[in-house]
């Protein structure tokens, strides 16, 4: 049981984080809070991917001098899995792009209704 918890508790924490963001996205009333929720949610997903790439006893995915020039075979277990890192670089950029567009739309909404609370906006829009 203890082993199971030790092996998996990291994943559970990521899921809790994701769900905090998810809850903010769907249940919060304030538009900026929703955007904060997006950020938390996506960051937690990125954390999940990064933890996929983790290997015990491995170092950064940057080749050392000896591996570069010596013609010895490269020890794969020595380096972290670089692929999720690459994917997550992309995801971070997507995150900031979404943030920019979302804030622009929020400003547009505020310009029109002078409030950021969703229910007030809906009341006013009717």
């Amino acid at each position: 049981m203890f082993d199971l918890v030790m092996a998996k508790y990291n994943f559970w924490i990521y899921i809790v984080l994701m769900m905090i963001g998810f809850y903010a996205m769907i249940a919060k009333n304030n538009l900026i809070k929703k955007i904060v929720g997006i950020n938390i949610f996506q960051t937690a997903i990125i954390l999940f991917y990064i933890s996929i790439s983790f290997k015990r006893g491995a170092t950064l995915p940057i080749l050392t001098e000896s591996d570069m020039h010596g013609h010895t075979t490269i020890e794969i277990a020595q380096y972290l899995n670089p692929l999720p890192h690459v994917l997550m670089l992309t995801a971070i950029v997507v995150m900031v792009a979404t943030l920019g567009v979302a804030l622009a739309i929020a400003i547009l909404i505020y310009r029109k209704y002078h409030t950021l609370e969703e229910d007030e906006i809906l009341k006013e829009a009717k």
Partner: protein
Amino acid sequence: MTIAFDIVLQVFILICAIAAITVRDLLSSVMILGAYSFFMCLMWAQMGAVDVAFTEASVSAGIGTILFIAALMKTTRRSRD
């Protein structure tokens, strides 16, 4: 040692995440989100994803927070929840 560090970091991250969505003042919320991003990037650096941590530090904790604050100054920092 590293496990202790991990747990402390994770607790910080959880606290920051919960605080960011419960604080009423939006400016504080955004600031806490910046702190959350920064702890997150520490955690990634600790897992060896230096590239991603670097990007997060510059993008999310840097430009992202600035964009948030700029938008808040253009709108309002009050919130009901």
